[in-house]
């Protein structure tokens, strides 16, 4: 038993340490539950897709894709263009998504091509690609717009007539375009989710029992996960209804349900792709490139496709992120996207070789709670917000360093163990 606990601790050490840090930080931030929950929902919903975009390359054995910076920049370019054309609303955003996806394909091909020449060092390469691309984008934003791409728009262009401004405010048609479509109190959101899940589970049980003529017990066993989730949601809803402080919070806090639906949609695409032939190929490449090549899979092509998918998702993620922010820092918004997404995913318990959708959400939750409570806690504990600010930067870098180091360390320990087993030497 104690061995099991030890193994569990060892496996989830990063997540556990982070949970403790989060609890400590929330208690010391001195903020109300309403504020923390509202911030948390806003942050998780705007970051989730960016983190989701990391999953495909991990599955493909390429590690954590730091080059999603390119996708983020593509999303940003799309948003800047529709701001310039003064488009708004859903059709404007659709055009933006189209432009961003097209650009992402090009950027993804570029990054994937380079990854295919640097197998084994994709992560450091991805990071350098990010830095390199930042230089190119800066050059483009500063020199192309207004000079080569004609753009006469005093709200976007610097006074000299060339180059984009540092901060660009979106018009009211783009700001919160997803978030404001279906914004409901948390209570209603939980109710709707509960009803949907209830409908889903009842339908699937009834379908299997009456149509496929399966035994009820077997069906319940097979659907146990979805049933447990439904049960938890019902319990949560009842708790919110009947415990007054929870009720108060859950009426005040708003949930952007449409954005949540978008995130669910990206999750579904991701899950769907991994079930197809392409998904199988990607998985095989991730396990062993030589075996994959021997089985007739075009490894280089598969790796490029995984990178392109990741880049496209990242561009969507950045659009969701920025519509929630309401403005874009032209030269810096995309800069740190890769690092924060990677750190969040690792906090959720993912490794270089394995990452799941649930780790995405757990990681987003823990990382972003810490991210906004830390400076507040720092202010209260040291009467200096700057220390908390530095600490959260340290945390983001440190978690990446620690997870990487732990992973490599365990791997070499395992290799040693299996060598000993083969040779019979202790």
């Amino acid at each position, binding site marked *: 038993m104690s061995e099991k606990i030890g193994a569990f601790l060892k496996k989830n050490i990063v997540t556990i340490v982070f949970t403790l840090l989060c609890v400590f930080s929330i208690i010391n931030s001195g903020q109300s539950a309403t504020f923390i929950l509202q911030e948390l929902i806003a942050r998780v919903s705007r970051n989730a897709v960016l983190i989701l975009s990391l999953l495909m390359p991990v599955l493909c054995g390429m590690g954590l894709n730091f080059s999603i910076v390119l996708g983020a920049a593509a999303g940003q370019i799309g948003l800047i263009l529709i701001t310039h054309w003064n488009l708004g609303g859903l059709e404007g955003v659709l055009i933006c998504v189209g432009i961003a996806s097209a650009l992402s394909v090009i950027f993804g091909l570029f990054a994937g091509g380079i990854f295919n020449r640097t197998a084994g060092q994709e992560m450091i390469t991805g990071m350098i690609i990010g830095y390199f691309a930042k230089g190119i984008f*800066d050059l483009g934003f500063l020199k192309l717009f207004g000079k080569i791409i004609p753009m006469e728009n005093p709200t976007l262009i610097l006074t000299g007539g060339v180059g984009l401004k540092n901060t660009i405010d979106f018009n009211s048609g783009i700001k919160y375009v997803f978030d404001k479509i279906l914004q409901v109190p948390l209570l209603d959101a939980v109710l709707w989710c509960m009803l949907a899940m209830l409908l889903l589970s009842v339908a699937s049980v009834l379908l299997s029992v009456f149509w496929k003529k399966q035994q009820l017990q077997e069906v319940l066993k097979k659907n146990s996960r979805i049933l447990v989730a439904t049960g938890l949601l019902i319990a949560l809803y009842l708790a919110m209804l009947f415990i007054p402080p929870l009720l108060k919070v859950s009426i005040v806090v708003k949930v952007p349900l449409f954005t949540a639906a978008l995130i669910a949609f990206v999750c579904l695409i991701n899950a769907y792709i991994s079930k197809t032939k392409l998904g199988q190929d990607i998985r095989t490449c991730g396990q062993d490139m030589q075996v994959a090549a021997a089985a007739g899979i075009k490894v280089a092509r598969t790796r490029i496709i995984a990178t392109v998918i990741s880049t496209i998702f990242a561009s969507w993620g950045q659009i969701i992120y920025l519509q929630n922010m309401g403005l874009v820092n032209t030269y810096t918004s995309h800069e740190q996207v890769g690092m924060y997404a990677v750190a969040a995913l690792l906090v959720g318990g993912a490794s270089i070789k394995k990452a799941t959708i649930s780790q995405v959400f757990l990681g987003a939750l823990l990382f972003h709670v810490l991210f906004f409570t830390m400076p507040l806690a720092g202010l209260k504990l040291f009467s200096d917000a700057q220390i908390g600010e530095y600490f959260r930067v340290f945390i983001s870098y440190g978690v990446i360093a620690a997870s990487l180091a732990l992973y490599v360390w365990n791997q070499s320990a395992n290799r040693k163990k299996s060598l000993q087993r083969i040779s019979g030497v202790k």
Partner: protein
Amino acid sequence: MLEGKRFLGMGLSQIIIIIFLLLLLVGASTLGMDISTLLSDSLVRIGMNAIFVLAMLPTIQSGVGLNFGLPIGIIFGLLAGLITVENRMTGFSGFMTAVLLAVLFSVIAGYLYGALLNRMRGSEMMVGNYLNFSVISLMCIGWMVLPFTNGKITWAMGSGVRSTITLEENYEKILDSLWSIRIGGITIPTGTLLLVVVLCILMWLFTRSKFGIMLMSSGGNPMFGRSIGIDNDRVRLVGTMLSTVLGAVGILVYAQSFGFYQLYTSPIMMAYPAISAILIGGATTKRVSIFNVVIGVTLYQSILTIALPVASEMLSDSSLSEILRTIVSNGIILYALTKLDGGRVK
């Protein structure tokens, strides 16, 4: 970087860069820019950065690869430097005290860093890089809480040390101005360049010593190294420690020439120019010589100090140089990474 025919020990890419530089100088003179200032600037910058580039040599030779964790050494050099400023040490003795302290700190730091990297075979670059980021950001908190009291280095209000600390009253340009001479309008920072030359010669002698040969044969082929009885881990440890020490001494030399200690996040990117420089000099992640170091730092820093002002002058825009620096520096690293052994997927 390019294999094939060599001229005076230089590959094709180096020769192209030299021709490019000469063309740039011609261009600069037709634009009416002061050539001697450009050359003086590049000499100063070569002296400032050479030791960082030299620091890449031992890690590549011992098989660790490019040392992305160079700022770990730098941060301990800064700590040593700050201690001397705190105690109002000036002149040559102050600088030497800083160097000795820096060596002391960085030997310990380098030992720990090297021991960690020994368990990170194959991922040294990534782990080194993120360890660097973590250490620098942790030291940001360190700079805020360390008990420095000298008013020259602490903020007038609040806690912590200043983000830039001037060395004007301590040892600014102590090496640069040592035996400094002017030839036809070009100022030569003799002391700094001499120190660089001495360090290069010492390094060269080291690689010719018994341990140096062990280092290179183990780094070049660890299996071969082990089969002839070399302790690879020890060799890698020594290589990493040497690199860290050179990083720590390098920042002191850099700062005396620059005139300031820059703290907080400014050292975080300092490994990249050094890496680009050594790669431009013809080194790979596996093979390197002193010659690569010298030619690399000379070419890289000359490009930055000559090409960027010329480009700004031609396009009449000064905001470009930082962007161009990013593109050039990272483009070179990217190019070198694509040349890694066994990295090709078909």
